[in-house]
């Protein structure tokens, strides 16, 4: 039944297709090729930018179905779910994957509950079972200390949300062709019982969820007056600022900065932890980051368990030096010294990379 195809839920904001959709295209393309199936993207919105729809094709979709209506302009779960259920009914997908964003993690369970199908949250690995052709959905559990692989034996579509940043966006192939269908939401698409009033943008320049680079502070920062030490490093790296629960609970940084079980789960390319002890809760929110650098004065700190490089030392000594050296390199005033390290560790680092690539 591979003709039913693989679908991704592309996301838009203010009519522009969001980059997280391109990560899903990479995942979806791999699955579709393994199944010998078509890859389609569904997107819901109002006046969606045509270039964005074409970009979905350029980056791997064979078909794009854009459902548009004024009540779809902003994410509201009821009208979105109604339109998505209409699509599922019409196209009968085999697999639907979405990003584990606030939208994906709201819409997918709402739809899966209505359709009585299986849904696996926040997967980091998706694969096709060579025997059954079914979707193997692997996700971290118990604070990332185990990985559970989950299947949906009977009910279709098989649905999963995928952790944002857990894979690279698919590359565009200019001139790639695909079908783009723009359609209006069904006339009976309900507005639902929720009304969008306004969007209040976060004032900080970098949002944790979208950041490639994150500098996070833990209790080791000692007091709110010391936060600028971390801010300065974040600035040098062009990174977003994260925080452990203790830092937020003490009011040194606001809740949107919190990383971990009771905060945000993120997978940046680089995570620099300053004075973060590394509780299970914190690790659960960041240990899938691609590269982790930890600075902590306690050589036994749990954060070192998940770090690639750990500096055992005083963050107030280390962070300013790191920030300064980064600025020197950016300004072309300095090269990286210590080539010996490079040759010594090349092999080790490459191994680490392979392990991670083979997982994704």
């Amino acid at each position: 039944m591979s003709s039913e195809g693989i679908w991704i839920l592309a996301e838009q904001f203010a009519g522009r297709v969001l980059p997280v959709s391109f990560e899903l295209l990479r995942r979806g393309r791999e699955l579709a090729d393994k199944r010998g199936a078509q890859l389609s993207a569904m997107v819901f919105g109002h006046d969606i930018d045509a270039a964005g729809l074409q970009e979905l094709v350029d980056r791997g979709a064979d078909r794009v179905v854009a459902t548009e209506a004024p009540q779809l302009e902003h994410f509201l779960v009821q009208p979105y779910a109604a339109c998505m259920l209409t699509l599922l009914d019409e196209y009968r997908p085999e697999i639907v994957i979405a990003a584990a964003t606030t939208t994906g993690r709201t819409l997918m369970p709402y739809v899966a509950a209505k359709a009585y199908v299986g849904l696996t949250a926040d997967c980091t690995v998706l694969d096709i079972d060579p025997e059954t052709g079914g979707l193997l959905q692997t996700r971290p559990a118990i604070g990332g200390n185990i990985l559970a692989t989950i299947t949906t034996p009977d009910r279709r579509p098989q649905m999963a949300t995928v952790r944002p940043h857990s894979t690279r966006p698919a590359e565009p192939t200019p001139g790639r062709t695909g079908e783009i269908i723009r359609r209006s939401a069904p006339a009976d698409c309900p507005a639902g019982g929720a009304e969008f009033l306004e969007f209040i943008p976060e004032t900080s320049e970098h949002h944790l969820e979208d950041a490639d680079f994150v500098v996070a502070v833990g209790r080791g920062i000692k007091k709110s007056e010391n936060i600028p030490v971390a801010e300065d490093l974040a600035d040098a790296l062009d990174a977003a600022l994260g925080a452990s629960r203790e830092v937020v609970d003490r009011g040194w940084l606001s809740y949107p900065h919190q990383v971990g079980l009771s905060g945000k789960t993120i997978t940046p390319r680089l995570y620099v932890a300053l004075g973060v002890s590394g509780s299970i809760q914190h690790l659960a929110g960041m240990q899938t980051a691609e590269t982790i650098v930890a600075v902590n004065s306690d050589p036994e700190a749990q954060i070192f368990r998940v770090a690639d490089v750990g500096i055992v030392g005083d963050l107030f000594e280390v962070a300013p030096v790191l920030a300064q050296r980064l600025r020197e390199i950016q300004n072309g005033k300095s090269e990286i010294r210590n080539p010996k390290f490079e040759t010594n560790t090349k092999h080790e680092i490459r191994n680490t990379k392979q392990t991670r690539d083979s997982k994704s």
Partner: protein
Amino acid sequence: MRIVVPIKQVPETDNVKMDEQTGTMVREGVESIINPLDLYAIELALVLHEQYGGEVIAISMGPAQAIRALREALAMGCDSAVLLSDRAFAGSDTWATSYVLQAAIRRLGDVDLIICGERATDGETGQVGPAIAAMLDLPAATYVSQFEAPEDGHIRVRRLVEGGWQVLRLKLPALLTVVKEVSQPRLPTLRGKQRAKAADIPVWQAGDLDVEADKLGLVGSPTRVVRIHRPKVARQCRKLRANDADSTAAAVDEVLTLLNERELL
């Protein structure tokens, strides 16, 4: 307002240590507690109750010992509690769990608001809240970080989403899932504890609910866990000491070399 708060009992992971040899959680002495994120849901319900009157009912699906979590909710100030417990519920995935919870809410009758924690700290799916809303055909707002006043059969809430906050007006009845910013959970009072101890908590089984037997538990669950494995330790932390200016400079250079190697600069 009549408010239902579905809660979950989870293992206490705050002080959990990992066994370095086996990489598994050291379970000895690990207590069961109310999912910490559910406390924010309970607190918001209690605050609304204090301001606008009504009733707060805590419900939980789980084994018999989950009654302890419900007693804790009562000790915090919930008016009543119901335990949903039956062997037929065992092995439920999020769909089958939501199915039982929504059936219980239906049985409770007129409900204005359902408030859930954003996710449980053990399963970490965050799926049960939205699924209950879907099964009851209710409007829902997830990731609610601020509750603004109810007005004329509606409520106004703020959702914490990527890049900012979405402000919504929801028609009641509705379902919310909340993040920790929404409230500051109170501690149970001694009087609350005494009242909770004496409280009679009904246990509803499958037969007490309007449910189809083939949608319950493992049988009714669309998903199956087929494998549990430990993540390969892909990282071997290279620990560097920074005791003085020279060792700090050297350590920083090693970090920069790694970042350069990985094309992060």
